[in-house]
């Protein structure tokens, strides 16, 4: 019988841990999340159902430790040479169950990339923050970049160069004093214990030296969060306002330093795109499972739906796209794992290609899911089938991280060497 494991992956790109990551992730999804996920939408505010699922994934199985060096209790993924392929596999499995959980889980590593990944490991900050994550309860971090005036501009490093960032960091003695207002970071709304905050040390400047990525523990005086926003989907991801009101942290909480923060922040973008593509891949694989059952059990013209040529055309297009997106996921993971072959993870080329793959995968997924829902008729929008959930959830993957138009601009800029866009 055909299963989701028949979707192609370039086998030579996989991590030695692939089987274990996959099996553990799959078991967790099948036993702990899929049976209860249908009620997640109503749980968006309190996470009574969702939190225990995180607890087992991150705390008890221990995945929240994996980026830190081994001697600090971590699993050393940050210097393993297969961070990309490992992350892709795990994110796929989590997203197969719930892509909102996948983003909350993925984002816990997002700011940590700045300090845990070779060649820019910040040992002192790793030592400082590792104990926070070596716990049995789920611990989250958040990457706070988006601001009320816009998220796309902050990610538009090439053109806008950080000049719109309004969250300021001023060095006073051996402390940073941070003031500003962020919106939307995944794992805000009271979830995260640690924020990585994108700040400017010189408001209005485009100089990369003035972009600072500074860690702020969530319980630092002056740091407050609002309640979670209500949104179309992704209930497992809480998003809210965060205010920084004369927040003081030690000067060495800056991730990498002048110039380097801006440079490695692009790597954060690349990994965000890998995460996004893997979420799409995992969600679509689950839709395939649901659709396959539906098309076998439901009849049209007196035979199983899948045995009707016109329905089969839609089913085929969907399977084709899942297969391609999965290959793409691992291809991009490979590109991030082998900078010696493909270039630095923070290079304009890798960032632009990540944007291209991400918006390709997202556009395809959203279109495909619409067709699948139409094929399923009234059952397509029925929450009992979960297809509509994946549709609602994946729509935001298409929109976040600067939105589609920013992706288009960065891709055009790199491939066509545009200079003014």
């Amino acid at each position, binding site marked *: 019988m055909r299963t989701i494991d028949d979707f192609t992956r370039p086998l030579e790109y996989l991590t030695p841990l692939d089987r274990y990551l996959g099996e553990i992730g799959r078991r967790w999804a099948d036993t702990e999340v899929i049976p209860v996920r*249908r009620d997640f*939408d109503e749980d968006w505010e309190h996470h009574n159902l969702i939190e225990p699922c995180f607890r087992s994934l991150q705390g008890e199985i221990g995945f929240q430790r994996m980026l830190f060096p081994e001697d600090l209790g971590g699993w050393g993924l940050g210097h393993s040479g297969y961070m990309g392929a490992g992350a892709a596999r795990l994110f796929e499995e989590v997203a197969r169950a719930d892509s909102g959980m996948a983003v909350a889980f993925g984002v816990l590593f997002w700011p940590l990339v700045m300090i845990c990944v070779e060649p820019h490991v910040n040992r002192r900050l790793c030592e400082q923050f590792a104990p926070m994550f070596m716990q049995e309860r789920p611990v989250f971090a958040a990457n706070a970049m*988006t601001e009320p*005036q*816009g*998220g*796309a*501009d902050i990610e*538009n490093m090439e*053109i*806008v160069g950080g*000049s*719109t960032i309004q969250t300021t960091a001023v060095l006073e003695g051996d402390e940073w004093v941070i003031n500003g207002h962020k919106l939307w970071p995944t794992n805000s709304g009271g979830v995260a214990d640690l924020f990585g905050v994108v700040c400017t040390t010189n408001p209005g400047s485009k100089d990369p030296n003035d972009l600072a990525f500074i860690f702020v523990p969530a319980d630092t005086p002056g740091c407050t969060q609002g309640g979670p*926003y*209500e*949104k*179309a*989907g992704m209930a497992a991801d809480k*998003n809210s306002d965060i205010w920084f009101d004369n927040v003081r942290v030690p000067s060495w909480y800056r991730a990498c330093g002048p110039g380097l923060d801006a440079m490695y922040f692009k790597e954060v973008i690349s990994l965000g795109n890998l995460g996004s593509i893997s979420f799409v891949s995992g969600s679509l694989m689950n839709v395939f499972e649901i659709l396959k059952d539906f098309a076998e*059990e*439901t*009849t*049209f*013209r*007196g*035979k*199983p*739906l899948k045995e*009707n040529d*016109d*329905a089969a055309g*839609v089913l085929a297009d969907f399977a084709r796209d899942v297969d391609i997106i999965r290959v793409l996921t691992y291809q991009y993971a490979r590109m991030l794992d082998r900078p010696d072959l493909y270039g630095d993870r923070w290079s304009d080329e890798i960032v632009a290609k990540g944007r291209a793959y991400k918006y390709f995968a997202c556009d395809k997924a*959203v279109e495909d899911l*619409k*067709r699948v*829902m*139409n*094929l*399923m*008729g*009234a*059952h*397509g*929008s*029925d*929450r*009992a089938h979960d297809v*509509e959930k994946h*549709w*609602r959830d994946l*729509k*935001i993957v*298409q*929109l*976040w991280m600067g*939105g*589609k*138009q920013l992706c*288009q*601009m960065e891709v055009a800029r790199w491939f066509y060497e545009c200079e003014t866009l």
Partner: protein
Amino acid sequence: MSYQELFPIPVEWLEDADRSMAETVSAWGEQEVKARRLEHKEDYDALLLPAMKKLFLDIGLQTLLLPEERGGGGMNSPEAATTATAVLENVGAADTGIGFVFANSLALQYALAIAEKRSDEALGSAAGVFTGDDVSLVSLVLPGYGTDTGDKPRYYGLDFPATARKADGGWVVTGGPARPQCCGASAAAFAVVCDLGEGVPGVLLVPGDAKGVQRGPAFKKTGLAASANADVTFDGVEVPSSALVLEGMTALRGMLSWYYMACAAVCAGSLQSVHEILQEWGDTRVIKGKGQIFKENPLVASLMGEIGGKMGTSRLLTYNLARMLSKPDVYGNAGGGNLHVTAISAFKQVGRLAMEAMDNTMELMASAGYATEWNLERYWRDVKTVETYVVPETVAETCMARQYFNLKQL
């Protein structure tokens, strides 16, 4: 400029009375839905039911198409198609779900009061459903996918939700569980498409409280909070002979043509609110560093142009369909092959265009579009739900191909 001016339709098709009714409904939408939804979100009891009460009872949509002598609004002629479209557009602009619920009722009202082969007996016995003091929701139960193979009469490949057999001067309706179009949990009456024998379709009106009607639990769905839906089973339900609303393929297709028109109007109307939301966003958001007003960015503008085009086209298509249905002397019976397929095709196009326009709008609004606060996402969920419900894609395509290219076997 108003939406009506921005996206014109042939205005000579609307009478003053239509315009005034549309304005009344538009004011209802502003006051009863839009002004209150920040507080009540999609709460059925606090927002949607009270709004439906005002619309259906005080404004009178519940009996709009019924003849005056039956206590109705007296619009019982095909001309009502354009009136209904103008009204439905405004209902959809306020809340797609309420529009969809009304579309179900409207289709049945058409079959009872306007259709060429209407039955006075059926009208007499059904009028009570509409003319009470309470909101009476009507649910169409249409053919759908099945669960068994083998030969039996089908409707364009779909299983009939029930069969009806004559007995003791009345009918016995048996079938299900079937998925109604809307309000399975709350409908006062079901208009069930039945196999009357050897595949001859008919619609029987089954009161929601008739013996043998079993409703499943209300289930959760993507959108359309105004429609509390549940699967329904008809376990040998006995109804009088006057429950037969219509009989035969042409009559059924006529009712469905009006239904498709109504659903298209609801989707086109939802776009009206989407336009308002995007206008506000486009006027005030700034991108690309300081200073560039969002809508003045050429890439954004090109997408906004496409969105506007889809809004205009949806409106044009919907009103053109309404016009054709309003003039059977010129365009033929609503259930005739050509017009019926035009109705399917127009609804499918409008649904698709509306979804594309909303998807693109959400792309332009990024996180704001996804947050409930801006209301875009509710139209997006609702219209998608309408699109999935009304006619399965495969069936629509087959019907169109059969008519346009003279297929013989499918």
